[in-house]
């Protein structure tokens, strides 16, 4: 039993804004609770109060009381929760301590000084429960994001906690990996663990949840029971500013889109555009292959066509080399592939000049000390007037003087988009642009892309987000190995 009694919290780093206001909440043992709401609504803060990262790691002022099984947790420190509460974090790359998977699974138990034989037998149990035999004794750096997240969950499971907290665990996962995560959560549920999940992407866990708590600006605004949420519709979700509930794989979307397009063709008999014929203004790709040094072939595209001034979504299974494809296409990864644009041939070096890529982690492409400078250095010729105009287009005018690194994830994403606009490159690549975004921010990104299409830019995006595809993508290409 977890009880919050009139909890208020303010971070020292952000004294103007109260992160939690007057939260009173009781969570029963074995309950699976989904905490959701827009970014910065306080759902992550709630988890940090439980696992002890506040105050050990984040400073702030708290009033009110929190009880776990009747004990006031203010008398406890972060180490008292190890083995009782397990936390899965957002970023798969940053939450493992060891280099190999086996040590990672044992890590928590070793710190607890549990005897070796006991650790090994617990690990065996976890490995078979999660079916991760194939992932054992591997280098974690060579695993995909989804596999890393599985290992993170497994390393928590070995410790056998009663309470499991998940802080946006799917933000960096594709459809398939999120489905795998769902299975793990289901497994925990069956074991009777108390589960708290903070998420924007609610579709994959919605029907597992016994209860959904919606936050806004630090307050609990809605608290729905199982029977209320089971009949929820997408329209209702939109009303609560939540993402879609549809659990639909991107491949299915592609299929649906194609069907719809064919129907339309039959009806109005529009100019046909079958697989092989292409219009001259389309972008044509040929011979995109890429192999890692290890000899593993990750990319093999003989021919592909992409429509100009449209948005094309590239979907496909995990590890199919979608990111590698984007990197080759924009020219930062050298390969022999050719691209034709307006009948002109571009090799990888020439492509760098006409293609701009917004990377999945925007942190990597922010260099300067202010948002305005960031836009300025992206321009072929610096023009402050135009830069400010672009910033207002992406709704960042108020942040022109802020350091880009100090912004939130969604804002950084938009800074990168602003740079893309400023670069005047006709082709724009985006790698999972909506990962970790709430509904409002996702719609903003979609809106910006729709504007860019009107201005004649071509957009190619790798994504798993079916809602986002619905909002702004015209074509869907399913991409496999």
């Amino acid at each position: 039993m977890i009880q919050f009694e009139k909890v208020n919290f303010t971070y020292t780093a952000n004294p103007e804004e109260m992160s939690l206001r007057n939260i009173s909440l009781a969570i029963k043992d074995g309950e699976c609770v989904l905490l959701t709401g827009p970014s910065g609504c306080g759902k992550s803060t709630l988890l940090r109060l439980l696992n002890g990262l506040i105050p050990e790691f984040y400073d702030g002022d708290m009033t009110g009381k929190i009880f776990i099984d009747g004990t006031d947790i203010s008398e406890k420190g972060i180490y008292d929760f190890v083995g009782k509460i397990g936390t899965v974090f957002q970023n798969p790359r940053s939450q493992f301590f060891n280099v190999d998977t086996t040590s990672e699974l044992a890590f928590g138990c070793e710190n607890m000084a549990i005897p070796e034989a006991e650790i090994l037998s617990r690990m065996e149990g976890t490995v078979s429960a999660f079916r991760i035999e194939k992932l054992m004794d591997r280098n974690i750096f060579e695993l995909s994001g989804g596999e890393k997240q599985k290992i993170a969950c497994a390393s928590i499971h070995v410790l056998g906690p009663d309470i499991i907290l998940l802080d946006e665990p799917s933000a960096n996962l594709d459809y398939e990996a999120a489905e795998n995560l769902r299975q793990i959560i289901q497994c925990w549920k069956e074991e009777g663990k108390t589960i708290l999940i903070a998420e924007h992407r609610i579709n994959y866990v919605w029907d597992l949840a016994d209860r959904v708590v919606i936050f806004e600006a630090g307050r609990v605004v809605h608290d729905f029971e199982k029977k209320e949420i089971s009949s929820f519709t997408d329209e209702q979700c939109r009303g609560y500013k939540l993402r879609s509930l549809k659990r639909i794989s991107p491949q299915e979307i592609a299929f649906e889109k194609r069907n719809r397009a064919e129907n339309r063709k039959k009806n109005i008999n529009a100019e046909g555009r079958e697989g092989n014929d292409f219009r001259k203004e389309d972008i044509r790709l040929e011979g995109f292959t890429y192999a890692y040094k290890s000899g593993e072939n990750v990319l093999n595209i003989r021919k592909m066509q992409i429509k100009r001034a449209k948005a094309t979504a590239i979907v496909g299974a995990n590890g199919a080399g979608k990111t590698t494809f984007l990197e080759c296409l924009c020219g930062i990864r050298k390969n022999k592939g050719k691209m034709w644009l307006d009948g002109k041939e571009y090799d990888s070096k020439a492509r760098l000049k006409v293609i701009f890529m917004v990377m999945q982690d925007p942190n990597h492409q922010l260099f300067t000390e202010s948002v305005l400078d960031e836009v300025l250095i992206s321009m072929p010729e610096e023009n402050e007037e135009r830069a400010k105009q672009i910033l207002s287009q992406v709704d960042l005018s108020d942040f022109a003087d802020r350091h880009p690194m100090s912004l939130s994830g969604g804002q950084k994403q938009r800074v990168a988009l602003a740079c893309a606009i400023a670069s005047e490159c006709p082709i724009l690549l985006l790698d999972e642009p909506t990962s970790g975004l709430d509904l409002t921010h996702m719609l903003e990104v979609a809106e910006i892309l729709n504007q860019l299409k009107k201005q004649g830019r071509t957009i190619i995006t790798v994504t798993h987000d079916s809602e986002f595809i619905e909002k702004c993508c015209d074509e869907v290409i399913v991409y496999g190995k």
Partner: protein
Amino acid sequence: MNKQTNSNRLNGRDLINIGIYSAIYLVLAIALAMTGLIPIFLILLSSMYGIICGIPFMLFLTKVKKPGMIFIMSVIMGVVMFATGMTWMPIPFSVVTGIIAEIVYRSGNYSSMKAAVLTCGIFPMWACGNYLPLFVQREQYFAERASYGQEYADAVMRMTPNWMFFVLLIMTFVCGIMGGLIGKKLLKKHFVKAGIA
């Protein structure tokens, strides 16, 4: 809530910070060491560490609030040099420079900017420990290779007299201060604004 960070004992977070900044420091150091294949750069290496690695080191110093962190990082440098084949000499040397750097930053209560810049000057001196074997066992080395001819041996000896080691130390110190000042500037310009420092 009772904080477990009150004591002066290093906690898990401090130890992780040492590891992280040692990694950043060494990645930069290894990148610079690649230029050391040209012999003249080899001599300038410790000075280059001072300037370039001073930048992340300055950021590291903002995380240092307890005694021991700078010392441990210095020892790690020595141990890594030992493991990459620079003999055992860098270890005792890095212990000494580490203690001095620790004392200097401590004198500023782990918060003074001036002390931080000075610490940046002293810390990279660990790298001078790598030069020690070149100075210490030279006579013996050339004695065994009499076939090279005495004049060559003499010439090499003339180019690297023992006082040269102290010149290197001073150069490293000066460059370290420069690195500290650049680091201070970047701290203000980027890291504080970005909320990392």
